[in-house]
Each structure stands twice: as C-alpha cells, then as structure tokens.
C-alpha cells in the first residue's frame, strides 16, 4: 500500500507542476487537492508501517526517533532544496524530478523493511 502511494506521489509531481504551469486557478486548485490524495496514500499507512518495525520494549523510542529523524534528513531540507532548484532552473519540473527521486528512495527503503502485516506485534522482533 505504502509503495503504491510512493509510486503515485513520485509520478504526480509532474502532473502537479504541469497543472500549476497552466496558471489557471481552477487547475492549480485541482492540482493541490489531488496532491493531498497521493501524499495521503503514504501518510495514512505510515504510522503502522513505522511502528511495527520495532520490538515492543523499544518501540516508542524507535518509532519516534525514526519518524522525527526523517524531518531532519528530508522534511527540513526539502523546501530549501525545492526553492534552490526552482531558483537555479526556473522550472517546477526540476522539483518534480526531486520528488520522484525521494519517492524512489522511499520505495526502496520500504521494500527493504520487514513487513509485519498480519503478524503478532507483541512478540520480540529480531534485528
């Protein structure tokens, strides 16, 4: 599910900036609303995906640190990077490429995570 969301998010970046480039308010509005949908395909399942990865006795620490660490490595710099890219290339599509890149990183990382769906989460988790 999360990977589907990542794919949708990665691709949608291009549609989003195409819609923005029309400069028609209605298209821009549509683009922004739709961008929430693709973004939410990732945001919704995220809580379970992340929290399930950690063994119960370390879970609060692990999930919190993992989640907030992403603010440091990607969330924080993202607007700065996006703004810099826009300034350097003058095109929103460059930002879409950046979003695609990040989405690909997400897909790879998610694929590497063990999937605990339908498994008992109160048991110890190995490495």
């Amino acid at each position: 599910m999360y990977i589907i969301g990542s794919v949708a998010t990665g691709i949608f970046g291009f549609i989003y900036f195409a819609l923005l480039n029309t400069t028609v308010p209605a298209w821009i509005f549509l683009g922004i609303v739709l961008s929430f949908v693709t973004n939410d395909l990732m945001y919704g399942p995220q809580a379970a995906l992340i929290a399930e990865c950690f063994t119960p006795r370390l879970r609060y620490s692990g999930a919190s640190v993992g989640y907030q660490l992403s603010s440091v490595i990607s969330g924080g710099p993202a607007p700065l990077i996006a703004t810099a890219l826009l300034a350097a290339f003058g095109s929103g599509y460059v930002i879409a490429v950046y979003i695609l890149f990040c989405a690909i990183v997400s897909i790879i990382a998610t694929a590497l995570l063990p999937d605990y769906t339908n498994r008992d989460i109160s048991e110890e988790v190995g490495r």
Partner: protein
Amino acid sequence: MTMIGITSPPLSETDHSEQLRRAVIASTVGTTIEWYDFLLYGTVTGLVFGKLFFPESDPLVGVLQAFAVYSVGFIARPIGAAIFGHYGDRIGRKGALIATLLLTGLATFAVGFVPTYQHAGVWGAVILTVIRFIQGVGVGGEWGGSALLSMEWARSNAHRGFITSWSQIGGPAGAMLANIAVLVFSWISGDHFLIWGWRIPFMLSIIMVGVGLYIRLGILETPVFQRLLVENRTERVPVVEVIKRQPRSIILTALARMGEQASSSSTVPRSSISRAISCSRHSAWRGSPRSSRSHSPGICRIASDVGACISSARLRPGYSASSTSLY
C-alpha cells in the same frame, strides 16, 4: 493499589472493545489537539507575529525568527522523540502521552499572554522562540505514542493498519481547527484582530488540553506494554538500545518517509511556487504551509484541506511562508 491503571486482569471481549474505542479516540483527539497547537502557531506566525513581535527593523529578531523556524524541525522534534521515546518505553505510553499533551498545550496557552515588541522589546520574540521550541519537543514526542496507543490495542493483526491510521487524522483535523479558530476570531475581532483577536485561539487551547487530558487519563495502558511490565522486560535506556539494536529499521523508516516528506514539504513552496509560477492573485490556495496532513479516510483530509484553503485564502493579507519545518 499501586498497580491500578498499569496492570489489570485480562479483559473480556466487550471490555477490550471499549478500551480499543477509547484508545483510538485518545490517539485521534489528542493528536488533533497537539497539531492544533502546533499549526496554530504556524498560521499566526505570518499573520501576526511578524508585525507584533518580529519587526524587521531589529536585526536580532530576524536571527531569532530563523532559529525558531529551523530549530523546531532539526533539533526540538528529535529531542522530543528521544525524551518521550525513553519514558514511553520505560514508564508507559499513557504517561508519555499525557506529558506531551500538557507540554504542548500549556506552551500554546502561554502564547496568548506574551507581551509584544512594543511593550517588552525583543523579549517577546525570545519568549515566543522558547515556546516554539517547547512545542516542538512536545510534538516530537507525541506521534510515536499516539500511533502505538491505537496499534497496541488493535484486536487482530488484520485490522491493525486501519486502527493505527486513525492517529494520522489528527494532522488535518488539527489544521482545520486551527484555521477555523483563526478565521472565526478574525471575524469577531475585526480590526482588533492584531490587538486581542489572535490571542483567543491560543488561550482556547487550555480548554482543549482539559478535554484531551480527561480522555487520556481515562485509558488503560496498552496490553503490549502491560505485558512488558509484568514480564519485567522494559529497557533501561531504550533510546540508546534501539539505536544499537535496530539501526537499520530507524534509517529505513526515516528514508521511507522521504517521498511523502518531499511532496508534502513542497507545501511551503506550494504557496511560494504557485505565487512565482502562476498568477499572484490566487497564490494563497495553500495558505498555511504544511497546514494539513493526511489520513486514510481521504474525504476528511480533503474536506479539511479545502477548509484550510478557503480560510487561509481569506486570511491572505500579511501571509508569508514562514514556517518551513512544520511536519
């Protein structure tokens, strides 16, 4: 007596359902309140704080403002994650969640009383920056606990994903409430919005904290954590331990969020980009940067975002994309 609320005898089916329901409510409502607090600050930053606390004439103030924006994402939230992660794994999910709620809520309430530049000079900005930092610590600790609270009460492994995703609705719901609060009080106070109107939504936070506290005090510790206590398996220094034992999981989960973060964080550019690329008239569609997060019941999310769009479009005057790391 000492074990009350921490360890309890096995629950019947109905009791478990009741607890699950309460846990989901406590997750969702509590997280909504935290995001209300956090995003309210973000929304009001551009509308009010620039004028009343951070005048451009004072160079020191500019530094403070930048610090307030960046330190929250890069420092305060990870610190909050570590502190509350530690206590959440030591003394329990419930205690940690009550602490984060109080910390963020009281800090937000205090914003309503901070003296302006006109009255206290740069001190107003200093206090606001400190408060913002405290809010960041609280929010940083909130997410993990909220997700765990629902997840560890889920009855079957099959519907765990759905149950856990409820806590994620707190983001958009909090954003919507924050925007509505600002909108309503800007209508009520009219020309006096800058004088007193903006303070009311912050002061209202104390009522929400009361509600959240009531709900969170009424839940039991999760069955998973109870079992850890009974079997005496809690860790002495869980944060260090998890970094040692599951570094791969930490890094992968952080990276797994990258796509979502990149796309949602372009919300700041979302207002500035749309301003740059498209016509400036309608640039504030996405007024409060990062004002909304999402959740699986997508309709709620869309409704809240549309609400946020409309309210922030109305509040457009004086808006500036000032909050970068609000996730």
